[in-house]
């Protein structure tokens, strides 16, 4: 025991200033003790949401993402990264994981579609589109409608 404390003392004290990696305190429930880094569902660790609020939060973001807001899905995945990373260790609602996986899939799908369109547009250019390209490209649209005259 002494040796253990000795090594701990020399461990890097600045290691876990964001995620309490070693804070599996004896006070928490036993089911969480083997979680380690996944003790907190959010990436903010103890500053983030509790397990109960997380489900509500994840569900809300998942639903809102359908309003053509894939960025919300990305933020959702980012926020609950520990849950995505350690799927087995989590004891909180399996629904949470489902929403997150849904968000991740949705974001990847949307990003794939959007980027393929954007790349086609950018690389294909006028050869592919013809005159329509000039209509669609942003700087022409801005000039046509005088969008930059506000500042």
């Amino acid at each position, binding site marked *: *025991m002494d040796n*253990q*404390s*000795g090594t*701990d*003392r*020399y*461990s*890097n*004290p*600045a290691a*876990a*200033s*964001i995620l*309490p990696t*070693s*804070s599996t*305190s*004896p*006070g*928490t429930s036993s089911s969480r003790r083997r979680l380690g880094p996944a*003790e*907190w569902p*959010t*990436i*903010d*660790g*103890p*500053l*983030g*949401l*509790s397990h109960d*609020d997380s489900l509500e*939060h994840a569900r809300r973001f998942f639903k809102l993402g359908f309003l*053509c*807001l*894939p*960025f*919300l899905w990305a*933020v959702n995945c*980012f*926020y609950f990264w520990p849950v995505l990373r350690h799927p087995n260790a989590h004891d909180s609602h399996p629904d949470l994981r489902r929403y997150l996986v849904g968000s991740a899939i949705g974001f990847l799908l949307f990003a794939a579609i*959007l980027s393929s*369109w*954007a790349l086609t*547009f*950018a690389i294909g*250019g006028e050869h592919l589109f013809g005159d329509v390209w000039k209509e*669609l*490209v*942003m*700087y022409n*649209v*801005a000039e046509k409608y005088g*969008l*930059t*005259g*506000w*500042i």
Partner: protein
Amino acid sequence: MEQNPRPRTVLETLGEEIIRIVTPVSICMLSVVILVSILNGDSSSAGDLPITTMATIAYKESSSDSTWDKLKGALLNSLVFVAVVTVVTFLLVLLFYLRCTKFLKYYMGFSAFLVLGFMGGEIALLLIQDFSFPVDCITSAILLFNFTVVGVLAVFMSKMAIFVTQAYLVVIGMLVAYWFTLLPEWTTWVLLVAMALYDLAAVLLPGGPLRLLVELAMSRDEDIPALVYEARPVINDSGPSGGVVRRRVWREGRGDTDENQGLSTNTRSGLSSDSTPGTHLSVGIGEHEMNLADAEEGRVTGGDSELTTPLVQHINVQMNSSENAVPSENLVLEGIGLGSSGAIKLGLGDFIFYSVLVGRAAMYDFMTVYACYLAIIAGLGVTLMLLAFYRKALPALPVSIMLGVLFYLLTRLLLEDFVVQCSMNLLMF
């Protein structure tokens, strides 16, 4: 059994806290400098805004006026601006007194939407035009829409990822600061000095609006609705139940200082992150008592006593960018404070004015940028130290702005000549 790691020294904890506040300030300043050099570089002489804004309502500077005229005009402009800010801050105090927090919150979200959507969109457009980026309107519309909506949510909701919230606050500060750099030169400089003086008055004088606001918030133990940047608190794992203790602290709200072995959670709501420059710089201390212990604590919003709200309050920052727009107030938030978990909070107004100073310096030369950057960071450090010493609300703007302006003048008038002459004669540099 876990043993505590080597207890962190004051230097480490304090240093980390300071770094966590200096980094976003630096990032904001850097981005404004980059934006300014890209967008304003070619048209450095055309510093006149085509539209009358609140800051140029009294006098429109043109390059043909004499110095004295420009100075007078700039003084008039700044007086008008400061007067408007004062009125608006008093209005905010009144609304807060009448407990219209919902209205304030919505207004804040609305102004964040305006800043991110319109200002952000415009600047993105200018960049696209500058670089002739071949992006189509559908993609840019989707991206802008996403960016804006998530930004408004980040400002509105307290339970968003801390990193996302902080990033959006820095972006809002950057956009507003860029807008300020479009003002004419003399007006900008005099305005900066005027705001610094106003900050001093509003926070320290007994009748100052910011001071009233802070006292109100403290007496009610509420959050001030304002846009504040809150740095991530330094979590010490020195206790075996480090994480749990922190959560319990928040759950019980402030006021349980005795329970937490030296944790610096005091009940006082921190600074006003409000409309005007009030900086309460409070330094969070770790679990080991240090003398800086009672930093003012931030606020734990009434409802969510369980969780810290990393974003403490939201204040509307709205820039009046066209005369047709509804005369929106310029509620600029300046202030450093302490979050409920002991982290440093810095008002967005401070970000904005620091970046305006550096952006203006960038419009002259990069040498002034370096000098002003160092001056501002030094001023910020001094303010932090003063705060730790006095432990009450202190304005963050005056020291940094005065140092910054001084260094700008010295560099422009004296240093530049020296350096250029030395380089030309191959003596140094």
